[in-house]
């Protein structure tokens, strides 16, 4: 992060667009620190995406196919015929501007083309030129323009400066959803081989190894066994997860980030401890090294790629003969499961309607997908008093909760995590109401933008969220940001260090793991991170 300007510098943001210049007169300038690197040819090739080649967005020549314009416009036509959303959203915007100051990238960056309305106008202008009479005749006067290489670059630059968080769509009087426009815009760009490396590499990895990080089966098992050792060290209890086990009742799928990097790993330890605890109560669950990814970077590529990567969830559930699927804490994974999976790859008629083997609760709201969110599952356990918990073990932390965009605005998963957190922590404070629940602010790095080279963009996009955390940090001494998303867990630590030093990041099941009293455990002196528990600080020193 050495090349990112200092927070004081970055925070000098001017939200006023140029006075006299129209946006069509401002050619795109692709900036270091904002744009991500281009997708590498071998990753595109591996999954059969078009136009694989070495290229860089910072070069003049993007090595487009000869007939790129034709491909783009034909792709647009096809999508207008397939998606009513796109057609309606191209036609009905009145440019009331309600969305303009709702986007975290505009708030934190001030680039006028990051106003959601204008991001959509970038594509709308092309649509008008091709598909409306006024646009054909009046051209610019009707807000229409021809697609040129520069316009294409502009589309690329701004569609990869949108995290598809849907905050703007909440405020739009017609429900115009920039995420939908960005998703389809990225599909069009992918027809020309214009993906970013940070998306295309995880996609290729996921296709091959089952997860974004390219973790191979033996390594996946090793990594989890590493957590098993850690848990034994901390609690004295050895948990015994199983892998690819046929005949288990439930298949567990979580984002691979949870097994790979801190602090997601502690959340993973929380899952393992919970499953162990429930084993005696009748839980029969298995992990899979094949369906080893909950997230879906295909969703940031195209609907088709999303479907291709999502397919292994049901396929693996079928192969193992489980009854239903339990899903880990993840953001866009849950939007895909809630709004797409059954449509993509259903019907899952080889599975059964999910029932908690411990409480007998029927998860009626997951009747068709047959996939339950682990936070729902745990909330139900706590409600039925099935867990022995000692919330005081989390007394050294003051927690606030970040609603991840997708579970919030693509599902409405708001109360369940709060219920669990409040059950396992004694100190919980909400951030201001305009920044949480359905109005939550994105982490600034979603939808595949959590790369290293666009750190300035990420710090800018994360500013509104960080600003709200700072508020509760100063007011209530909040020192822990809880979330239910693997990308959040990966990107918040640098964001907090940058804007609000002194706030750490956790998944909800890490908090559960800390509070959960396992049968036969030794007296715990540290939390899952190996930090002394409240009241144990001196003993640590001995």
């Amino acid at each position, binding site marked *: 992060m050495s090349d990112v300007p200092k927070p004081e510098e970055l925070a000098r943001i001017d939200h006023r667009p140029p006075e006299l210049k129209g946006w069509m007169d401002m050619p795109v300038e692709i900036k270091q620190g904002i744009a991500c690197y281009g997708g590498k040819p071998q990753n595109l090739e591996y999954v059969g995406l078009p136009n694989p080649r070495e290229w860089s967005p910072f070069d003049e020549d993007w090595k487009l196919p000869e007939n790129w314009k034709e491909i783009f416009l034909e792709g647009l036509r096809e999508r207008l015929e397939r998606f009513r*959303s796109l057609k309606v959203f191209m036609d009905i915007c009145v440019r009331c501007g309600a969305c303009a100051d709702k986007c975290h990238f505009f708030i934190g960056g001030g680039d006028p083309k990051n*106003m959601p309305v204008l991001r959509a106008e970038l594509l709308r202008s092309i649509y008008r030129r091709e598909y409306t009479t006024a646009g054909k005749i009046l051209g610019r006067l009707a807000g229409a323009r021809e697609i040129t290489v520069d316009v294409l670059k502009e589309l690329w630059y701004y569609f990869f400066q949108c995290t598809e968080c849907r905050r703007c769509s909440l405020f739009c009087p017609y429900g115009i959803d920039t995420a939908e426009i960005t998703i389809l815009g990225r599909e069009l760009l992918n027809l020309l081989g214009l993906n970013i490396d940070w998306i295309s590499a995880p996609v290729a990895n996921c296709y091959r190894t089952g997860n974004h990080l390219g973790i*191979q089966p033996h390594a996946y098992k090793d990594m989890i066994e590493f957590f098993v050792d850690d848990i034994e060290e901390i609690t004295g209890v050895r948990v015994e997860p199983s892998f690819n086990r046929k005949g288990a009742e439930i298949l567990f799928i979580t984002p691979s980030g949870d097994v790979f990097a801190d602090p997601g790993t502690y959340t993973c330890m929380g899952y393992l401890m919970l499953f162990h605890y429930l084993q005696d109560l009748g839980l029969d669950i298995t992990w899979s090294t094949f369906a080893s990814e909950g997230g879906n970077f295909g969703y940031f590529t195209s609907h088709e790629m999303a479907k291709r990567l999502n397919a292994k969830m049901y396929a693996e559930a079928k192969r193992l003969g489980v009854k239903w699927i339990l899903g880990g804490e993840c953001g866009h994974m849950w939007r895909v499961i809630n709004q797409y999976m*059954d449509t993509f790859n259903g019907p899952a008629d080889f599975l059964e309607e999910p029932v908690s083997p411990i409480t007998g609760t029927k998860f009626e709201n997951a009747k068709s997908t047959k996939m339950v969110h682990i936070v729902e599952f745990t909330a139900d356990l706590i409600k039925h008093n099935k867990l022995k918990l000692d919330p005081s073990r989390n007394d050294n932390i003051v927690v606030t909760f970040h609603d991840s965009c997708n579970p919030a605005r693509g599902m409405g998963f708001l*109360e369940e995590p709060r219920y669990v957190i409040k059950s396992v922590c004694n100190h919980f404070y909400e951030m201001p109401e305009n920044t949480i629940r359905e109005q939550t602010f994105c982490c600034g790095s979603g939808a595949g933008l959590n790369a290293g080279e666009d750190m300035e963009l990420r710090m800018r996009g994360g500013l509104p969220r960080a600003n709200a955390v700072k508020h509760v940090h100063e007011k209530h001494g909040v020192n822990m940001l809880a979330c239910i998303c693997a990308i959040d867990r990966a990107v918040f630590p640098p964001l907090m260090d940058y804007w609000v030093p002194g706030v750490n990041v956790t998944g909800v099941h890490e908090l559960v793991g800390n509070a959960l009293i396992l049968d036969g455990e030794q007296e715990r002196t540290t939390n899952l991170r190996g930090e002394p528990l409240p009241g144990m600080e001196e003993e640590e020193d001995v």
Partner: protein
Amino acid sequence: MSLLFSVVAVVILVLIPWVGVGALDLRLLFGVIVPYAAILTFFVGIIMRVVGWARSPVPFRIPTTAGQQWSFPWIKSNPVDNPRNTRGVVLRMAFEILLFRSLFRNTRLEFRQGPKITYEWEKWLWLAALVFHYSFLVIFLRHLRFFLDPIPGFVHLLESLDGFLQMGVVPLSGLGVPGVYLTDMLLLLAVTYLFLRRIYIPQMRFISLSADYFPLFLILALGLTGILMRYFLRVDLTAVKELAMGLVTFRPKTPEGIGVIFYIHFFMLCVLIAYFPFSKLVHMAGIFLSPTRNLSNNSRFVRHVNPWNYPVEVHTYEEYEEEFRDKMIEAGLPVEKMPETPEEEADSAEEAGPKEEAAKE
């Protein structure tokens, strides 16, 4: 530029009937042909537009959820902002269409250096939009008195409610000017506000197109000519009604004695009607078809079918095991197929795919 273009366009549009009727007396054209053409354009245009939208399917269920989902009985769900069935959707749409629910959420960014960011109260846009649309609706309904005979009771009722200022609050009636309609004033106020915010808020100016200014000016011209006609340049209302009734009964007439100002007003209306289906004004119809608002969030418990769903190429478990079988066996992971001579093949599983690990975080 786009502002200027719209002003000029509306001025020209005002001049057309002025010259056309005032100087050339083309009453048949502006009193009969143009209105019929406009109405026809409106209906054909709107139908084509809506059919065009409806022809594209809704492959995925993508409501923007703005409240708690339906889950356990002990968690209070929000059946309107996160509907789980048709009833909820109907309520949500009613709130959107009748009360502009989403716009009501609006806030205004307050950015102070430091940085310190807050989101302030901002209901003016919502208020102006609501006032504008409802005033327009009332004015539209009031005008039914010209097109219906006998005049329905509710039109009279609206007129008396709308004109309650007549009861002596404003002393204009003493000057030979009829009672002032509240909605006339509100409409002009709201349109003026909507215009001024486009000019004064830098971001609004930046995003505004001719297509945004033009309808505002058109409606402003429509309103102003209407007001001029009602309060200052009186026209023969009996003759106007005769013309209007002629149009709706398909026995068109162009009676004598209607001032040019009426034709200008009427022409503005015709232009607005004809322009409607080809402009952003179609949001009136489009909102009903917006997939983030008109779908229930039920795709976890009711299967939603994509009509163009097609099979895709996937990487199967068998292919996966084929590549990693030896490593899996070595790690003690169960496999479907045991190799006959595991030792010999142990090294054959070379990395065939993407070399680079994505994990740089």
